[in-house]
Every structure is written in C-alpha cells, then in structure tokens.
C-alpha cells in the first residue's frame, strides 16, 4: 500500500534494491530539493521500522519530464540512499525557513537535517511529520490519518502548476461549460426580465442592420433616383427612418432599464449568498493563510460576474447577431466587396491582441504610480507631526519629488503611445473605407453597382470593426469570468470543518462542567499547538490559565467554544463531547471577553446588546452598571446612543473593555472565557474593571487566561502552560510550594513591579488573591 503519494515504478524498483518491499511501505512522499539545495527529486519512505531517503537525478529536468513520464524511467539514476531506524529518532520536526523547509530530528542524540523541500511542499511535510511521529510512538497509521487531501503541486491532467497551492483547481482544466451553466442557473429566477432583454436586443440588432440599408440602398437607389420603385416619396421614407430610429432608442432605453435592474439583483443575490456562506464557515477557514487570500478576492469576483451579466453576456449576443447579420447582408449585396472589406481585419486583430495590451500595461503602471504618489502624500500628511518633530520637511519634499517624477515619466509615455496608436488604428480602420470607396466607386462609375449599395456598405463598415474588437477579447474575458465564478462557488460549496451532526444533542442549559481528554491540536498539520492536554473544571469553578505568549492558552479557549475541533482527544461539556452538541446551544451559553474588544459600527447600546438584541433598555443599563461602564457612558454627550466603531467616538482601552464585559453580562453565558481580558489596560483601569469582572464571574464556570497574575487572584485552580503542554496544575498555594514555573513567574512580576516603584512583597501578591 502506498500512502500519501503513489510511488512511481522506477522508485519502487530502486527501493526494492535496498530491500524495501512495497508491501512494507506505510508512507511515502517526494521532495523537490536535495540536501544541498538543488532542485531534485528525493523520496522519503517510511516502514514500520525505519525512515528511508532515496535521491536520484533525471538527465533532463524533472518538471519537464513530468509531461512525458514514459521517458523518465530510463533517464533516472540513483545518487544516494540513507535509512534511519525509527527507534533511533526523537523529536521529528518540520521547520519552515525562508523559501524552503527542513525536516529534522534528533538521531541518536544528535540533531540532524533529514531532508529539505521547497515551500510548495511545506503542507505535505507537515503531514509527513505528524504521521512519522505517530509511527515513532509505535502507533498504527489508520485510514483516518490519510483523510486530509494530499497536496499535489501540478494538475494531474495537464501538468500545469496549480496557481493557488491551497486550492487544487487548475484554471486550464476547469469545466467551464458546467460552471457557465451554473452561472446561468441564477437566471431562471428572472425569466421575464431575461426574455424581455433578449427580445429587445434582437429587435434593436435587426433595426441597426436595417438602418444603413434603408439610408443607403433604399433612400438613394429607390427614392432619390428617378425611376426607382419609390421615386420621389421622400417624406414617407424620412418618416419611416425617423420612426425606426425612435423605436430603436425606445428599445435600448427599455433594454437598459431592465438590464440595470436585473444585474443589480443578480449581483445582490450572489453577494448575499456568498456572505451568508462565509459566515457559516468555521474560523479555521478565515485564519488559514491561503483562504485569507481567497476572501479578499471574493468582492472582486462578484464584480467580475456583474460585468458578465451586465456587459459581457448581452453584448456577446448582440455583437454575434450584428456580425453575422452585417456580413450576411453584405455578402448578399456584393460578395466581392464584402471580402475586400475584411482585409484590415487581421491587422485589427493583431493590434487588439498584441499592441493594445502594452498600452493597458502602461496605463496600469500609471495607475499604480499615481496611487503610490497619493499614498505617499497621505502618509506624509497623516504623519505631519512626526515629520515636523524630526524636522524632515525637506526630505519629505524630496521624496515627493522623486515619486512625482515617476508619475510624470509614465504620463509622458502613456501620452506618446496613445497619440501614436489611436491615429494609426483609425487609419487602419479607414483603409477599409478607402477600399470600399475605391473598388465600390469604380463599380458605381462602371455601373456595376448602385450608389445606394455603396453607401450601405460604408454604413456597415462602422458596425463591423467594433464587434470584431470585442470578439477578440471574448475568450480571455470568458475564462476570467469563469475563474471568478469558480472561486465564488467554492465558497458557496465549502463545507465547514466544524459541522454540526445531524443528530446533535440539544442542551438548553449547560451546567458548566468542562473536561479535556488528551487533546492534541494544531492550526497547521505537523505543528501541534496543544499537546496531550487533560484537565477538568467543575461547574461554577474558575480556572486560571497562565503561560508565556505562544504557550497555547488562547487555543485552549478556542477549542472549548468549538471554534476549532481537536485533532486527537476530545473536549467535553457536562459529559458530552462538544462535537455531539448543537452548535447554537453551545455558543449561546459560552461567552468570551477578549483582549482585543471588537466593537461594531453602531451605538453603545447596540454593541452591548449584540448577543441579545431583544434586551430591554433597562437590561442594558443594568449590565453596564455591573460592568462599571454606566458612569462613563452617561457622561458622553450622546450617552448610550453614542456611535462607536468606525469613525465613531474614540473610547479608551479600559472603556472598550468595560463594554465588552457588559456585553458578556447581558449575554449571561453559563461558561465564561476571559482571554487576557485586562491585558491591554493599565493597572489602575484594571482595578476598575476587576470589580466588574468579579461580578460577571459569579455563578458560572470561568476560564480566565492571563499573564498578569493578579487577574487570577480569584481562581479556584491554576494551570501553567508551556509550549503547548500543561506543566503545573493546582491551587495558588500548591503551585507556590512547588517552586516551579508559577513561582518563577510570580517572582518575575514582583521584580517588574519593583522597577515601577511598587514594592510588593510576595506575601502581598499572594494575598491579593485572598482579598
């Protein structure tokens, strides 16, 4: 069984030569770097007993060879082999450096670099580390260990590198047709509008095509020429033309209005769906680096799709109808001349595909340089106090001048290009006219063609080149629209990692017993943040969690409220695994006060009532009173109706924190998590908040995370964490007696207070807990 990645035939053979049977292999993975940092293919294979590394080289570079894999076998040559007994290894670790990573371990007591890989492979090696570590602990690898999708850098169908490593989506092999149909599936909801639009467009196309014919062929040949079919009937003809034009205008107004409404609604629906889907997703989706990127593009993608509905799709139909219509009429009237008109077409297509992109790139550079200049001005003016304080006015002026010069240079260049390119293009387009005039003119003179036909041709010329330009872009444009659609659908379809079970247990009132059993968790595979955490908190108890930053304290809190699920072990509330509980029940009864208080744009009252929108005004006042926020709120000119958040009233850190506490009090959770709730405020403010906190904590299970130990003076039990593990657990007195981490931290803080002129004896610090 080949696990993680299939072994190519020639590698299997090479490993067999070293006595590794394919049936012994439990895990294998390829790297793309050798130990000296050259691009090469190395294979890592694990059996139950050992870890083996095989390196080799292909005569031609491996990436190119991937496309012609049958050649690869003959040209591969082994260059090295190494094996390490799992029993000799300790502390396997995947370390991320700049641009590459190393897999390292302590082998027979000595740290050793096992292999290297480029950053493209870092996720895979995270998996490898986790799995091999399991083997080192003599655990069996089960199918559950391989549920995570294996990272492949290239598309298996066409060999293209995936542009986004987190999403294995190949833009080339995307099923665009299916996507297109799905995008169109938004439309049936708006059947009436779409039909109306199509009818309008077709009718107006018909009229556009008819108009030069009427104005040329009919007007000149049949009306103005003596002996014509409608000779002399100028007035009815003019009335007909005017009527047609009026109708055409009416149609396009109608079309424009319906279309504007339709697009706005489609995009509105789409954005609402995407936003709802985003809110449904687990926190992990937002915090992972790659998806963060995905999110920023969503808005842009929605705009792309808007173009699709608004400009692209309708214009495509109109242009296609116009092009075929015009060409057909021209060929029927005079096929020779019709073909001659096409002479400039290749030049136009060439220019559109090759010359114009250069101009767009100059334009986009101009845009970027202008933004750079603007942001520099903005920077400098926002920071004017610093500029003046350091007397750097002249430096700033010089900096501005340099940027301004860049903008000037690119503006010149853009000006030169546009003033050359556009006249040249219009000349090329005029060439078509010249051909028609000369050949057609000759035909008119020799009586082979009527002047009306010639005039009609001239009229059609203008309708030919515009749509052609549009059509040359259509493929690129369509691809990019479908890519946008793909990303949007990905979000719509994404399944949250933290999902509720169908038969989830409802738990209307949580008692508040929390247990963690052998919990292992990491945000990235192979990098556990929590290692084997076991603890329990009784209902109504307060557990203090202490540790230096990065010890995994906040992660612990995230698991209790099930923002993430542990990779191993389980978190239980009132004896139920949190994964079996209804998520809404859980979140409704867990409250969090974080270090960074996020206040939404809105009034103070609205912010306090965020978790309980149906709270009465009196409830809100009461909560604020308890949180000691009431006093400062009423002193504000707009009281509880003061706008905060973006562009709102500036509140101090302590004030914001008190609002957060009021929010939690109003929420009235059964389990309360205080994550560094007072870390960002000074000691004095903290004392003010402390009282509010103490009232909040009463009667509920509380997990309080802090590095300022004084915050935890009411804790029933303390847990000291270090590097993802619990190193000490017990009451304050028990931990003091241990003279371990806790004692040391307490001592350190006492020293720190001393520096600030606050002389606190150890007894006093300890005493703060009691009273």
């Amino acid at each position: 069984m080949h696990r993680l990645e299939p072994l190519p035939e020639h590698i299997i053979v090479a490993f067999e030569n070293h006595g590794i049977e394919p049936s012994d292999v439990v895990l294998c993975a390829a790297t793309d770097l050798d130990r000296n940092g050259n691009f090469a293919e190395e294979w890592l294979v694990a059996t139950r007993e050992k870890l083996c590394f095989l390196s080799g080289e292909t005569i031609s570079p491996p990436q190119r060879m991937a496309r012609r894999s049958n050649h690869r076998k003959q040209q591969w040559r082994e260059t090295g082999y190494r094996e390490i007994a799992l029993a000799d290894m300790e502390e396997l670790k995947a370390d991320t450096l700049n641009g590459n990573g190393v897999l390292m371990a302590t082998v027979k007591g000595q740290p050793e670099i096992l292999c290297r890989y480029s950053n493209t492979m870092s996720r895979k090696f995270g998996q490898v580390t986790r799995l091999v570590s399991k083997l080192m602990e003599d655990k069996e690898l089960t199918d559950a260990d391989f549920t995570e999708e294996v990272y492949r850098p290239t598309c298996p169908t066409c060999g293209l590198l995936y542009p986004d490593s987190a999403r294995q989506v190949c833009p080339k092999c995307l099923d665009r047709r299916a996507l297109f149909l799905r995008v169109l599936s938004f439309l049936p909801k708006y059947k009436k509008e779409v039909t109306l639009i199509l009818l309008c467009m077709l009718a107006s196309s018909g009229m556009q095509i008819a108009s030069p014919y009427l104005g040329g062929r009919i007007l000149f040949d049949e009306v103005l020429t003596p002996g014509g079919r409608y000779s002399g009937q100028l007035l009815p003809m003019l009335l007909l033309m005017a009527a047609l034009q009026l109708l055409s205008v009416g149609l396009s107004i109608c079309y424009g209005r319906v279309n504007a409404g339709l697009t706005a609604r489609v995009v509105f629906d789409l954005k609402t769906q995407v936003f709802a889907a985003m809110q449904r997703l687990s926190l992990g989706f937002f915090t992972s680096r790659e998806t963060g990127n995905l999110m920023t593009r969503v808005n842009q993608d929605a705009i792309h799709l808007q173009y699709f509905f608004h400009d692209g799709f309708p214009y495509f139909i109109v242009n296609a109808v116009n092009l075929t219509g015009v060409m057909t009429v021209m060929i029927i009237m005079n096929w020779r001349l019709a073909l001659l008109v096409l002479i400039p077409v290749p030049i136009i297509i060439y220019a559109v595909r090759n010359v114009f992109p250069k101009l767009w790139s100059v334009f986009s550079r101009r845009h970027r340089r202008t933004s750079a200049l603007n942001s520099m001005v903005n920077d400098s003016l926002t920071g004017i106090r610093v500029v003046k304080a350091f007397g750097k006015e002249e430096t700033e002026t010089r900096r501005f001048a340099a940027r301004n010069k860049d903008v000037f240079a690119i503006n010149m260049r853009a000006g030169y290009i546009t003033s050359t390119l556009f006249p040249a293009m219009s000349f090329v387009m005029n060439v078509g006219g010249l051909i028609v005039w000369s050949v057609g003119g000759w035909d008119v003179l020799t009586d082979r063609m009527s002047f009306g036909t010639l005039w009609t041709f001239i009229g059609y010329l203008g309708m030919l080149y515009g749509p052609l330009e549009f059509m040359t872009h259509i493929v690129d444009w369509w691809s990019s629209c479908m890519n946008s659609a793909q990303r949007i659908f990905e979000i719509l379809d994404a399944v949250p990692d933290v999902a509720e079970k169908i038969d989830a247990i409802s738990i209307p009132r949580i008692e508040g017993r929390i247990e963690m059993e052998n919990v292992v968790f990491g945000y990235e595979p192979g990098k556990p943040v929590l290692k084997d955490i076991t603890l329990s908190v009784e209902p109504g108890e307060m557990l203090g969690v202490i540790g230096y930053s990065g010890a995994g304290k906040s992660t612990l809190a995230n698991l209790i409220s099930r923002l993430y699920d542990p990779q191993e072990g389980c978190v239980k509330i009132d004896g139920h695994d949190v994964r079996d509980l209804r998520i809404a029940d859980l979140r409704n009864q867990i409250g969090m006060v974080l270090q960074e208080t996020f206040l939404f744009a809105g009034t103070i009252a609205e912010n306090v009532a965020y978790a309980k929108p149906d709270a009465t005004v009196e409830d809100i006042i009461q909560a604020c009173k308890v949180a000691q926020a009431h006093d400062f709120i009423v002193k504000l000119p707009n009281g509880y109706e003061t706008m905060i958040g973006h562009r709102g009233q500036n509140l101090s850190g302590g004030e914001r924190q008190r609002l957060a506490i009021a929010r939690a009090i109003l929420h009235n959770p059964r389990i309360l998590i205080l994550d560094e709730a007072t870390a960002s405020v000074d000691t004095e403010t903290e004392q003010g908040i402390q009282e509010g906190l103490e009232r909040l904590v009463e009667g509920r299970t509380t997990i309080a995370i802090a590095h300022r130990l004084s915050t935890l003076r009411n804790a029933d039990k303390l847990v000291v964490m270090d590097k993802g593990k619990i190193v000490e657990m017990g009451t304050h007195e028990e931990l003091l007696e241990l003279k371990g981490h806790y004692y040391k931290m307490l001592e350190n803080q006492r020293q720190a207070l001393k520096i600030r002129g606050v002389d606190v004896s150890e007894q006093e610090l300890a005493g703060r807990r009691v009273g």
Partner: protein
Amino acid sequence: MNRNSREEGLAEYAHINYLKPEECRFSLTDGGFLSLTLNTETYPVVFAYRAFPLSFGDMYISIRDEKDKEIGIIRDLAEFPCDQQELIRLELERRYFTPVITSVIKMKEEFGYIYWEVNTDRGMRRFTTRGSHDSILPISEHRLLIMDVGGNRFEIEDFRTLSPKIAKQIEALM
C-alpha cells in the same frame, strides 16, 4: 559626556558582541548543522540570520544558539577565513533559500497568473506567480525578488541581462 563616550555607553547597554574571527571556530556537525566554539565555550548547534538579507547578505549576521539567544553578530563575513565563510554561507543559504534565475525559458500570462519556466543556479524550475505586481519586489532598480504562490523566493540579479523579450515582459509587470 562627549559623543564618543556616550556611544560606547550605548553599545555596552545594548550588549552587542561583534564576533572576531580569531575567537570563533565554526564547524559542521554530522547532522548538517553549524556549531560554534567561541573562545572556550562550545555551542553544539547555532543558527545564522541575516539582519539585512536583501542589501547586505554577507554583513551583520546574527549568530544565535538553540534557544534563540544571540551569541553575537558577524560584522562582515569577509573578515573570516574562507573555510569558515563557506560553512556559514551553507547555513545562510538554507535559511534564505533564494535560487537565482539565470535565464527565463518561458513566461506566460494566463488566467490572471504568470507561469514561469526558468533556469536557476539550483536547476530548472517551473513556478507560478500572481499576475499582480506585488509578486515582484524590486530590491534595487534592476534587481528583483520574485515570490511565487507557494511562498518560494527567486532572485533576478539584473533583469536586463535576460532576453530582451523577457526583460520587456518583466518591466511591464513592475
């Protein structure tokens, strides 16, 4: 206090230990790590970090022990004997893995991404960058750092030395 003595005072306060070649003996462990004997003290594993990785790759190199504590700073690698330089460079090369692109075989913009196929001093490589300009960081006027979608880094020492067609393509992206 005159300026000089004040600066000395600051240096003392900052505890910067500029490593002198005669006091240091770097060596390579069997496991592939760098180790250092400084005067009489031996550090079994040390790590090297560049303070100015882009502008002064060989200067101001922070040497740190296993617990990430700074042992000292190498002011200029060139002051050290060649064999020692080589060892430190080996460690630096690993930490700042940035293959230098010597020629571009193909560069194609499609679907909003740029697909590169290049020869580097580390061998041939295909990679993808986002089509936007922030994947190319100009270090100086002609020297470029390129970041691909997987977080890998590549360097072009002077893009004008590449073929004129590629140079133009790159210029358009900057």
